[in-house]
């Protein structure tokens, strides 16, 4: 079915790519639109994308799921809580029947024989999985420039990076191709691209969401989290994917709180601990944060200053722990059972050739760093010591949470930087994660919420961190903040960012009133 035919079908329905998941679910339940029509629109938007967002579109699987939903509705069945939600998955989340490459040559065309636990749960809840999104290879990067399959462009400014490593997923939601998406956050890989692209992005408590089926980067840090255009949509997704899983021994058996219900709870008297930060923040970020603090005060929050004395070691600790685990996690990509194999003269040569050809430079760099950190004679000085500092960082948060309920900081010291700007200087790239790393290393839940724009029209995100398993607190605060600020309702001008938009469901129509393309918006 082409766009014109869809237009005819949809008639006068005022459908928009900016519909949030709640609006879309209502439209489906009320019969305003069918799941199939909505899915076809999403597929069209994704197909017309010029930002490099998707690595794989699963039109067949998505439409099959959609028609099943329509049958269920026609048959009077109760629809799942995510019915009608179009969703994109980061390409390191295993999907039965859809390639899972992790943005790497070594897994080009790899088809997993199973669905990740989160995918099973999403499907059961009625979500329509549209496709797999571009990412930094094996989730290693902060700009999405480490993908073996090309860059992803920031929808607010095509010369800018979308952030990483879940850049594709952030863009898919930010540019209105899907209602929500999933990324994985190891040191900030959901929050930072969320901030760069102006969407709400959640990194749950370590152990809150099953990692079964998430291709591991650093097992003690990785968590799957949602991107959405509202806190409530993100809460809806987390509600479905969170919870115990016997297939992941690190997954918590703690009952899952009512995240959706948490949106709308009062925030008056909530104590917000403002993290004292250095001079590294860009002026635009500082201004936006100042306004955000004022807004939170207006909401009745008490803002206090907090410190995380060991946070300054975050980058060092992270790049020891994460690389050490990665060096072991990525050992399985040896060309023996699946993925790329470059046959060499003997076994060792085959290993070396396969991995040299299959892995990109950043992945190779991290494998070497991690291998070194775990080597005999260095283990105590590096890996063990890093784990000890990690404990100190967790204790920093414990102390901070005596005086506050959430810790507030920018998500990133900068807004989206230019593509190519930092690729030659890995350390400067690593520093982009300075605010997100402490919560990762302490295993705490955190959210990045859009909180303004800089002079160049690029989104700024603020990060809120809560004690373990207190995601509800984050949803309550993020939702309340959204009600008084509307930053999350601004959308990039996809009409000029992309080639075109889907006919009747014109982005122009939806964005005419609200969207504010940044100064450098459409390059």
């Amino acid at each position, binding site marked *: 079915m082409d766009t014109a035919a869809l237009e005819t079908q949809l008639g006068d329905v005022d459908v928009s790519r900016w519909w949030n998941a709640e609006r879309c679910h209502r439209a489906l339940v009320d019969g305003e639109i069918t799941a199939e029509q909505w899915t076809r629109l999403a597929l069209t938007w994704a197909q017309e994308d010029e930002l490099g967002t998707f690595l794989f579109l699963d039109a067949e699987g998505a439409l099959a799921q959609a028609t099943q939903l329509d049958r269920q509705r026609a048959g009077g069945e109760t629809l799942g809580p995510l019915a009608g939600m179009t969703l994109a998955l980061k390409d*390191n*989340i*295993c999907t039965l029947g859809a390639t*899972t490459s*992790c943005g790497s040559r070594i*897994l080009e065309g*790899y088809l*997993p*024989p*199973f669905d*990740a636990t989160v995918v099973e749960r999403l499907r059961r809840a009625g979500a329509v999985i549209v496709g797999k999104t571009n990412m930094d290879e094996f989730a290693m990067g902060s700009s999405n420039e480490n993908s073996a399959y090309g860059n992803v462009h920031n929808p607010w400014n095509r010369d800018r990076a979308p952030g990483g490593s879940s850049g594709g997923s952030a863009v898919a939601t930010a540019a209105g191709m899907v209602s929500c998406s999933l990324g994985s956050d190891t040191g900030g890989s959901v929050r930072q691209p969320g901030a760069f692209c102006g969407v709400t992005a959640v990194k749950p408590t370590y152990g809150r969401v099953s*990692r*079964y*089926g*998430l*291709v*591991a980067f*650093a*097992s*003690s840090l990785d968590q799957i989290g949602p991107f959405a255009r509202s806190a409530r949509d993100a809460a809806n997704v987390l509600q479905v994917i969170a919870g115990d899983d*016997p*297939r*992941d*021994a*690190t997954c918590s058996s703690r009952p899952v709180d009512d995240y959706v219900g948490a949106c709308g709870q009062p925030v008056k008297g909530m104590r917000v601990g403002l993290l004292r930060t250095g001079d590294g923040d860009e002026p635009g970020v500082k201004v936006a944060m100042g306004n955000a603090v004022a807004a939170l005060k207006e909401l009745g929050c008490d803002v206090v200053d907090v410190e995380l004395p060991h946070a300054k070691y975050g980058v060092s600790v992270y790049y020891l722990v994460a690389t*050490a*685990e990665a*060096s*072991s996690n*990525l*050992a*399985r*990509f*040896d060309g*023996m*059972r*699946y993925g790329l194999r470059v046959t060499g003269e003997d*076994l060792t040569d085959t*290993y070396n050739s396969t991995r040299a050809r299959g892995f990109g430079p950043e992945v190779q760099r991290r494998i070497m760093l991690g*291998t070194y950190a*775990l*080597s*005999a004679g260095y*283990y105590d000085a590096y*890996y063990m010591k890093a784990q000890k500092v990690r404990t100190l960082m967790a204790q920093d948060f414990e102390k901070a949470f005596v005086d506050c309920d959430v810790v507030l900081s920018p998500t990133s010291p900068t807004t989206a930087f230019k593509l190519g700007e930092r690729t030659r200087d890995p350390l400067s790239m690593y520093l982009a994660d300075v605010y997100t790393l402490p919560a990762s290393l302490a295993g705490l839940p955190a959210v990045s919420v859009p909180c303004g724009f800089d002079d160049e029209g690029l989104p700024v995100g603020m990060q809120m961190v809560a004690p373990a398993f207190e995601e509800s607190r984050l949803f309550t605060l993020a939702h309340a903040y959204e009600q008084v600020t509307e930053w999350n309702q601004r959308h990039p001008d996809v009409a000029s960012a992309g080639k075109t938009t889907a006919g009747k469901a014109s982005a122009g129509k939806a964005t005419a009133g609200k969207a504010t393309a940044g100064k450098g918006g459409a390059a």
Partner: protein
Amino acid sequence: MSIAYEPTIGLEVHAQLNTCTKLFCRCSTDYGAPPNDNICPTCLGLPGALPSPNRQAVELAIRAGRALHCTIRGKSVFARKNYFYPDLPKGYQISQFELPLCEDGHVDIEVGGETRRIRIQRIHMEEDAAKNIHGAGQTGTTWVDYNRACTPLIEIVTHPDLRNADETEAYLKKLREILMFTQVNDGNLEEGSFRCDANVSIKPVGREELGTRAELKNINSFKFVKKAIDFEIVRQEALISGGGTVVQETRGWSEGDGKTFSMRTKEEAHDYRYFPDPDLPPLVVTEDQVARVESELPELPEAKRARWQTELGLTEYDAVVLTGHPVLATYLEDTVAALQAELNGDLKKVGKKVANFLQGEVLQHVKTDGLHGEVPVPPGGLAELLVLVENATINGKIAKDVVVEMIETGRGAKAIVEKRGLAQVTDTGAIQSEIDAIVAAHPKEVEAYRCGKENLIGFFVGQVMKATKGKANPKVVNELLRASLKG
């Protein structure tokens, strides 16, 4: 002047835990399935798959630990041992390194009348690797069968307390026996579920410091272990006496050459880069769990042997033979209990009767395969037969035939005896008439007997039994014969 050397030996035994499923997934551990049948994303190390520990395996490891007098650690840690090989699907093996589940145990062995305590340093849990099959069907090609990947093992590591091949063999046999009786391991050396590596070094007699060791790997029979150790001791002595030094290396055993050979030197050894597996939280075992496992420990073979000798009247030899397999030991005890329930006699006599009959007539028909074993007559059935002997319905010789028929037909002893009319003839009249005929037919032998060749009584008994088709009560025959022969 030549220096005297003494060997020091430490053992690492890998024993497969007797579970239905693998250590970190729910695949079957069945041996002999078609290649790559028992596999899943986890044991194949597919991207995204994660391990989740098998509780039964942990339980069995604790059982082994307690049976070997180890301390069980409340919090032990799974660690990754990193190296590349096609039989290792994840590029690392999940094992335990710094904090193993069990520590500080021992096994007492007896060699040449001397009892020695062999200290166990640690027992840790780990997953097995897959199996590489080289060159099958095509030279230069290696096939990998992942059925074995991720099957649960314990590695039992001793201190270097063993001094020679005999002690090593005694330790291995004792260890295997304990693991089999506790149902921890099936003791199957051929299928590789009980494997042994031996660290062998020599040092001048009396010196504290150990010599450089060679690690003898993957030797799959007790006989080969003994031979390999003996060879290695001689090799190292010759090397040192000749002014050379022993190189730290891994050596294999070639049965064809009767020699050990170098597989890998220390320089080629891997740096395994052990670190705690972030996919698995520390393994927590409560004191209650350890206490429960311990209370459920079955009687160990050594205790059985001692008890059988005092309570059941068995000789040490009987006891050793009948603790040769857990199924056999259980069978003996069940049969004794069943027979005693019928006879209510002297337990020592009852025990001895069962032990004798079992060894003489049944043992040859017992088939065992790993922990499985089949005695073709149920304990109650054997007791029924022995009751018939005890109350003189049949004699011992007939009993031997009856048990064969029981095995062949599966029918009960009483039914066979009745159907075939095998009950003993105790009618003195009938027996006397046979005796009269035999005495009359053998005047020479009668004469010789009366002149003092009293051992001819055996000849006469034989004749009577032949005439009565073995059914005559031997006691009655004896009495009547003696009376008749007196003349």
